[in-house]
């Protein structure tokens, strides 16, 4: 489970950034990327963090994954505080983006072995997990071929394998389908569903409302670092004033 409480994150602005952001930021030394955000993600449910580009989604996910430290507020993942026990938090999460994030000169087997070693998995458990995942994703035929020589579909499968090899309790997806073709995006969506079925806590960021409708059990709408909605999909639908998810999203963000 993930619990985000009154989370804020400020970034220092360089002189150049202040110039680039225009008059509004000329005299400001910091940029509030996330401002007083709170939500919870439950195991066995998919939580969608929805917002336009620059809303603060990636910053929130990076704080959850301990890559960034919050300026104020707190985050707990699987019962561990991200600031007090960052290593334990990381031990419990898998992180995935739309980028395949693989090493060209390693094979899929070596890639997942590397991640498993970083997570301290023993060889028996690794072999068992690897065989199961490779079989599930139909990866055996290219398991020992260097990544540089793989097709984009094969790379995406490898990326999925390295995300879940250590069987994380929490899986974080940062805009996982952005820029992907339909087939590859569908594979990611299947992975998210599988994670939910396995009782994992899943949080994913997106600005595609179709994915929200398709996948989410709970959602939060974030814009300019502030939270505009947080609740279940049913709650969101019941309070909708517009005809579609897209229009409701635009209405909420537009009002902001």
């Amino acid at each position, binding site marked *: 489970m993930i619990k985000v409480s009154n989370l804020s994150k400020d*970034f220092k602005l360089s002189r150049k950034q202040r110039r680039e952001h225009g008059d509004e930021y000329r005299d400001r030394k910091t940029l509030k990327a996330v401002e007083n955000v709170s939500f919870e993600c439950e195991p066995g449910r998919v939580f969608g963090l929805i917002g336009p580009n620059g809303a603060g989604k990636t910053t929130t996910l990076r704080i959850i*994954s*301990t*890559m960034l430290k919050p300026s104020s507020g707190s985050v707990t993942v699987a019962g561990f505080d991200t600031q007090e026990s960052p290593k334990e938090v990381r031990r419990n999460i898998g992180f995935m983006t739309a980028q395949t*994030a693989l090493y*060209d000169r390693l094979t899929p087997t070596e890639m997942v072995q*590397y991640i498993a070693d*970083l997570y301290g998995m023993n060889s028996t458990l690794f072999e068992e997990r690897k065989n199961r995942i490779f079989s599930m994703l139909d990866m055996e035929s290219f398991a020992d071929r260097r990544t540089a020589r793989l097709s984009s579909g094969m790379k995406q499968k490898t990326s999925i394998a390295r995300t879940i090899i250590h069987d994380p309790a929490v899986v974080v997806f940062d805009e996982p389908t952005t820029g992907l073709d339909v087939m590859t995006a569908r594979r990611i969506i299947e992975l998210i569903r599988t994670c939910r079925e396995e009782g994992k806590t899943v949080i994913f960021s997106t600005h595609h409302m179709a994915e929200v409708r398709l996948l989410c059990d709970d959602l939060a709408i974030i814009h300019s670092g502030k939270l505009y909605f947080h609740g279940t999909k049913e709650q969101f639908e019941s309070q909708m004033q517009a005809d579609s998810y897209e229009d409701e999203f635009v209405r909420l963000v537009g009002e902001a």
Partner: protein
Amino acid sequence: MGWFVIFVKELTDMLRDRRTLFMMIGAPLVIMPLLMTTIIKVTESQVEKARSKELKIAVLGGDAAPELTARFSAEERFNIFTDIDEDSVRAMTAEETLDGAVIIPSGFYELIKMDRQASVKLIFKSSESFDAARRRIENIVGQYSAEIVNERIDRLDLDPTLFEAVVIVKEDVASTRESFAENAGGFLPYLFIIFGFMGSMYPALDLGAGEKERGTLETILSSPASRFDIVLGKFLVVMLFGVLTALVAILGVFIMVWQLPSLEVDIKAVVMDMLGAQRIIFIMSLVLPVTAFFAATGLAISIFAKSFKEAQSIMAPLNFVIIIPAAIGMLPGFELNYATAAIPILNLALATKAILAGNVEPILMAEVYLSLFALAGISIFACAKWFNREETLFRS
């Protein structure tokens, strides 16, 4: 042991990279000896060509010095021209239709006969290859002059020592090793430094900026490995490649010296002795902290850059910071003293020269070690701190 997992993975990855392997093995072991050997052989062949080349020499006023003119004519590799006027020889020498000219004034022979001093004018073009015409003409005139002087001394029954009041008896106490170390020893540390730098730069680029470009940085940052583990694993691989490249460069020097037929046997023996295992270990103990500095600096720059390309452009000026002190170390006259021993890189170059020459002063070496290890320590600490900054890792 997260750092070890990262170290093993990065090492495997880098050992499969052709560009890194070329930089580590190909450049110092093949390209460098090949290039140096080619330069030496081409220079030797050009010198030989200039020595054996038939030169077109004009001799004007030859009637005034028949004996000297006869010597010019007897020279096998001279093609003598006598029917050119004085104004034309200057222009022709400048245009290189003539290689040189000797103008003998009238009354030359009479002055010689009267036991007086005579002169000849030599027209040459110093920019011509190896200044061969001047050298060969001077050689003939010099021999002729010496013979006349000897004949005068004999005829007048003079003591030859009258013409050389003081004779310098030279005794060089420098061993062949010391002379060689002073004159050519600076080249060796230059190679260590340059190849150590080159060998660590590409892995540094790939393991920092490359990781950002591939998007793999987030994968390892979200793993249980601590930031220190990540930076340590990467740093050790970058440093290892720098050290190995420097070692391969030494092997390249061995190969180069071994297969140069023109190098005198005793010089060859001195070089081989200088590059003995003990000295190499001593030198490598100095190369180690310098490579640590290269690795930490390269990694810090690389992790700061948004892309591989940006990292390369930031690292380019660093070349000068490395090359300038290394090149100063090559200059003769620069020695290890309390001031130079404190200047990193320059101190490595000068200390290597001292080690090769066999005249190491322990107190100065201690200062060199202190300076180099302090630099390495500071740069590793700065790199680790730098890697912990959110602004560096997620700079956009």
